């Protein structure tokens, strides 16, 4: 079996607000030093799959820098390796890619060049550890045209997923994309194995643009589609709340996602940074701290990416703080997601007060009390910011009219 992996890394993921305003979702830092894409990429190489194509479209630069020639994953190879694909112009191809299936269709010529018989399609924005080999075996033994990975979800969550029904032979007999109510609870994980020939034939129908929405319902009765059940940790971190929760889950005594597993290492591109320095008056309990952090203040129940500095007298609690952000003296940060290179001025407070007014502009995205601060924003000294607030990337003193930003506001 000769397998090509295609990772979907082009979606805009607007639900992640300011985090995806500056980069594609797969490039968002996660778990301190990692990025979301590290999980599927590491799964590939840990499953001995070394031929990987990353399909990008939305804000790919951060992702390009991170993946590079694939060295951290040993994907800098002369046979196979990792390739980053961008949308391109050509005869008959003039628009942007309109969905996951359309993106694959754009690159079918590459698939044929590679002489592969199997194509594994992955989402670039899920956090999980999975050996793909048993699924590929299942696909082969079943002689399926397509196989999708499924997992059980709670009946209350079925509206977020594509829900499948299967028969006794693990063959998919029904598929509903995000049903409002469903008796079935087997959800598709957005992981598909296709027989290369079948994929080519299916994508010849130009009206099929998305795997979940269009392709699966269309091929159920014309092709043999199997369902492979995966049991294990899997998280779609496509919303701010889910992203924050999955980070916080890493702080548990025995987390569902074990980053310390020497048999399944998650590889990433690491900057060269010195060890974490913890000062004489620091208080640090229940955290994940990355290289290059300098902690002089209080940090509790938080996940810090490399190079974060917390000055004396400052306090950080229940927050996710990304690379090189500086929290100055006596500032207070609680329940916040703070992007890279942000400066929180002296005595500033994030998540001040108790009122939980949902965000005025995006009430459906930000209503659980979290506040988010975009990349390179500068919060002036003494400013207090409430809950469910959005501070856009790059704002500085001039954007703050008062020294209080009430809950639910946006700057």
């Amino acid at each position, binding site marked *: 079996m000769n397998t090509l992996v295609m990772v979907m890394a082009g979606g805009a993921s607007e639900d992640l607000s300011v985090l995806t305003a500056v980069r594609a979702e797969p490039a968002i830092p996660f778990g301190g030093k990692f990025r979301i894409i590290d999980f599927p990429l590491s799964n590939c190489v840990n499953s001995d799959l070394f031929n990987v194509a990353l399909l990008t479209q939305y804000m790919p630069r951060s992702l390009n820098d991170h993946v590079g020639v694939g060295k951290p994953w040993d994907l800098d190879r002369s046979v196979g390796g990792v390739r980053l694909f961008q949308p391109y112009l050509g005869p008959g191809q003039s628009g942007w890619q309109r969905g996951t299936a359309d993106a694959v269709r754009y690159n079918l010529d590459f698939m044929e060049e590679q002489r592969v018989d199997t194509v594994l399609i992955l989402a670039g924005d899920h956090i999980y550890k999975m050996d793909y080999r048993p699924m590929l075996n299942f696909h082969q033994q079943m002689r399926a045209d397509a196989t999708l990975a499924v997992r059980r979800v709670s009946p209350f969550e079925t509206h977020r997923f594509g829900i499948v029904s299967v028969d006794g032979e693990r063959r998919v007999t029904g598929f509903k994309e995000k049903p409002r109510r469903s008796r079935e609870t087997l959800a598709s994980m957005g992981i598909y194995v296709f027989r290369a020939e079948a994929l080519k034939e299916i994508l010849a129908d130009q009206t099929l643009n998305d795997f979940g929405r269009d392709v699966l319902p269309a091929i159920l009765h014309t092709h043999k589609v199997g369902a492979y059940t995966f049991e294990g940790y899997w998280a779609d971190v496509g919303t701010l709340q889910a992203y924050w929760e999955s980070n916080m889950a890493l702080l548990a005594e025995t987390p569902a996602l074990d980053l310390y597993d020497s048999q399944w290492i998650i590889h990433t591109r690491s900057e060269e940074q010195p*060890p974490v320095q913890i000062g004489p008056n620091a208080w640090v309990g229940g955290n994940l*701290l990355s290289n290059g952090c300098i902690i002089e203040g209080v940090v509790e129940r938080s*996940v810090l990416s490399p190079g974060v500095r917390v000055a004396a007298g400052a306090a950080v609690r229940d927050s996710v703080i990304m690379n090189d952000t500086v929290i100055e003296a006596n500032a207070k940060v609680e329940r916040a997601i703070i992007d890279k290179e942000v400066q929180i001025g002296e005595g500033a407070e994030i998540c001040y007060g108790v009122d939980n007014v949902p965000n005025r502009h995006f009430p459906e995205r930000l209503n659980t009390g979290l506040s988010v601060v975009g990349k390179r924003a500068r919060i002036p000294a003494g400013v207090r910011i409430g809950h469910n607030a959005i501070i856009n990337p790059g704002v500085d003193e001039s954007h703050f009219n008062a020294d209080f930003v009430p809950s639910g506001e946006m700057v």
Partner: protein
Amino acid sequence: MQTLAVLMAGGAGTRLTVLSDKRSKPAVPFAGKYRIIDFTLSNCVNSGIYDVAVLTQYRPHSLNTHIGIGKPWDLDRQRGGVHLRQPYQGSSADLDWYRGTADAVYRNLDFIQEKNPDLVLILSGDHIYKMDYRPMLTYHREKGADLTVGVMEVPLEETDRFGIMTVNRNMRITEFHEKPKERDKGTLASMGIYIFDTDILVQRLSEGRPESPRIDFGKDVIPSMIAQDKVYAYPFEGYWVDVGTIQSFWETNLALSGADDGNTLKLHDPDWVIHTRSEERPPVKLGPQAQVINSLISNGCVIRGRVENSVLSPGVYVSPGAVVRDSVLINDTWIGPGAIIDRAIIDENVVIGAGTKLGYGEDMTPNQAMPDRLNTGITVVGSGAHIPGGLTIGRNVLINCDRLESDFPGAEIPSGETV
């Protein structure tokens, strides 16, 4: 101007006791995730010198694995790059091992001549410092020197540890005394950093005779050159430490854990990054019970106990209820629940059983087997040792590599013992 750097990395570092039992001194871990040689190698590439030879002899495996093809330092290059040179057999004259620093360079003269650089920069692989070599190279050229020696002022009471020199007004060296017993030779000490014109180096090293050997730079080569060649001193001001003893290794590490008072080595310096080969490890995990102050903690550590004034290398595990104080813990060491570690250096893959007290009591009896090396209250544990639970171990104790639980005689090991 082409420069070839030659790093001396063959020394046994015997004063570091068990730390250099299984590896040469430059390969000893330092400041958490680094190794001693990272500082010199990073100085080279940060100074724009990409042609580096590393001369090894004593236990080179750890060093070979660490340096590899030089990728972390961008020394995996088509032209130049890093070369690891081992001793080899050649004509009858080369049957012996290297007898000293100059001898090691002499045996690699063919390599140096093949490279044909204008200057050869000779460095020691076991010092901790950050130095841009470019000003020194410029100085060497401006003085029209044959040999330039990097020097720095040291306290008068330490002059017997260094090569001490006397200079004239133009910084030309007029006298050189290797480790003088009397304290009347001044305080200008050699840092073991030499720049030679290649031709002079080749000529002087080839002149060795049994009655006037050319085995060691400090003992033989420099004293013999002062009279006939232009030998200058280049003064360096900045942080520079020879971590050759257990005490200085421990002190220098612990200085990094404290607050930056301006006198210590600054590791967080984006303009002078110290590169190292990093294993892929997750971030530091601090449990809810963890208390950590004044410490340097590397990737992959999991801390559930208390850590004070200590330096932890990657992958160290500190169990709940354990206390680690004023100590240096090297990779993947496991500290059991309730164990108390005080003033210790613990090498990699050591297991300390539950409730064991290591570095206990007020008794400062020097180590009986090596009183000159272990006398300041530091207890040292060699790599791979398994120390059983419930033990009380005193100070200045030496536990050798790979000791098993059955090697420990009783529940108490008094100060000064060796296991």
